């Protein structure tokens, strides 16, 4: 890795610095280019009417309302699974256990789950929720699959947030007669709330942008879902279908823009929650 001897240290330093910054600029440049490319192409299609009207002719015309609603339902179902389970797991790991062989098994299992490709979640969701449990292609199958997929993210960020809470909060609360759970519920959790929320919001971000795991569990029906058992096509799956079916470039660009803007808002939201609220509690 060291720079070739032919350059004197001083000039090697300069060359290296420019290279490093160039690489970083390239990486950030790529990000801005991608977002710019999508938003510029999609700008013409973007309108309230596009967001709030139903598609016609398999999405060639009209809007993407059903897919927006489906995305919200599926992501909400995912959060309803991942948030309680994830935060509860994080509380147990951070507050109730000491590092032991058992916690190492839990932690490595959680890390391994985080490393599973989303297509495997798609296969599993299809085999387990859609077929074995007979939920069929539905919001429920999609939501449950995504919930399990973002579970590791929620567990990891929540545990970090809990560990960041000053130790003495627990001393004080329990010494004032609060039981262990009361001290967690009324002091530790509120103090860790920003970090936990950030983890959940980042999980939502991942759920919204997921395609492989959703296409085989929530299905692709381009209809307004009414019950959790209705099949539902999320925005990312709709965008993928529009692009791959070559149905309509404008509709594809429009959907992509809505998707990218949503992800931007979610990430910015997560970031501000993290900064503003932690400052209030520090």
């Amino acid at each position, binding site marked *: 890795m060291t720079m070739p001897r032919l350059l004197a240290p001083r000039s090697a330093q300069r060359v290296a610095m420019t290279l490093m910054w160039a690489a970083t600029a390239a990486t950030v440049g790529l990000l801005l280019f991608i977002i710019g490319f999508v938003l510029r192409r999609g700008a013409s299609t973007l309108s309230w009417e596009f967001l709030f009207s139903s598609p016609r002719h398999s999405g060639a015309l009209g809007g993407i309302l059903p897919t927006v609603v489906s995305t919200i339902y599926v992501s909400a179902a995912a959060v309803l699974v991942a948030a309680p389970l994830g935060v509860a797991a994080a509380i147990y790991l951070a507050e109730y256990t000491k590092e032991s062989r058992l916690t190492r098994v839990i932690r490595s299992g959680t890390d391994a789950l985080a490393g599973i490709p989303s297509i495997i979640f798609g296969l599993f969701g299809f085999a387990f929720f859609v077929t074995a449990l007979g939920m069929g*292609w539905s919001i429920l199958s999609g939501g449950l699959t995504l919930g399990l997929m973002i579970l590791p993210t929620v567990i990891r960020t929540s545990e970090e947030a809990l560990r960041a809470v000053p130790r003495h909060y627990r001393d004080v609360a329990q010494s004032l007669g609060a039981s262990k759970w009361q001290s967690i519920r009324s002091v530790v959790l509120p103090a860790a709330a920003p970090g936990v929320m950030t983890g959940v919001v980042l999980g939502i971000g991942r759920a919204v942008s997921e395609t492989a795991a959703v296409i085989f569990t929530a299905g692709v029906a381009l209809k307004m879902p009414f019950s959790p058992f209705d099949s539902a096509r999320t925005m990312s799956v709709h965008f993928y279908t529009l692009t791959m079916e070559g149905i309509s470039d404008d509709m594809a660009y429009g959907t992509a823009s809505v998707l990218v803007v949503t992800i931007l808002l979610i990430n910015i939201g997560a970031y501000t929650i993290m900064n503003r609220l932690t400052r209030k509690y520090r």
Partner: protein
Amino acid sequence: MARVALCLAVTGCTRAADAHVPAGAVITLAGSTSIQPFAERWAEEYAGGRIIVQSGGSTAGIKAAHDGTADIGMSSRALQPAETAGLVETVVARDGIAVIVHASNPVRALTYAQLRAIYGGTIRNWRQLGGPDAAITVITREDGSGTRDAFEQFVMGASHEITASALVTAYSGGLRKMVSQDPNAIGYVTFSQLNPQVHALAIDGVTPTEPSIASGAYRLQRPFVFLTRGAPQGAAQQFIAYVLSDAGQRIARAEGLAPVTIQ
């Protein structure tokens, strides 16, 4: 004629068009995913009862008709002898499979042998077919797709296989888009998928048109078959009659299919 791709990638919809729910008996159709979007269009216009259209593929449709889980089974391939027992087949439309090339491609016609050689990977350059000196980009559908089955059945036959170096996409609309972007590409889509961005080749001298498909002159086609256990009767018979009526056949033509009962 609004030739707009109607085929849904994975037709998971299990509920009839919810636009308006006519009174009357409820009929369930199940089977070929190629027929499914067209069945939905017929269902939308049909006033005689509520139609539930499910997918699952031709084989599933045949089985559904056999064991009665569906009133009408839909198959977009000819039935094997073993499958026909107890079933009455009614051809409601024909869907040709058009071989397409980029609009700028000078090659306008091929023989079945040439087509087999291209997709078999033995002819690799357009120059061998009177076109420009450029490698042919062969594009095909994924394994399991009904359109690919029909293409393999008519063009490749049992002995030949599509070359492993062919590009694969799971979407007929996507395949058409890929051909429209690559001057050296060749692909195949259902007749209903054709649009001005691509050019349909004449095969053995016959260009795929509605009449040539209806008459059977254009051999690269597959029938859309409604299957019932025994002769169709009751609500199923009424729906099939509607589909074969002038109104039903006009819908088929509007959606790019070759009608069977009207010229």
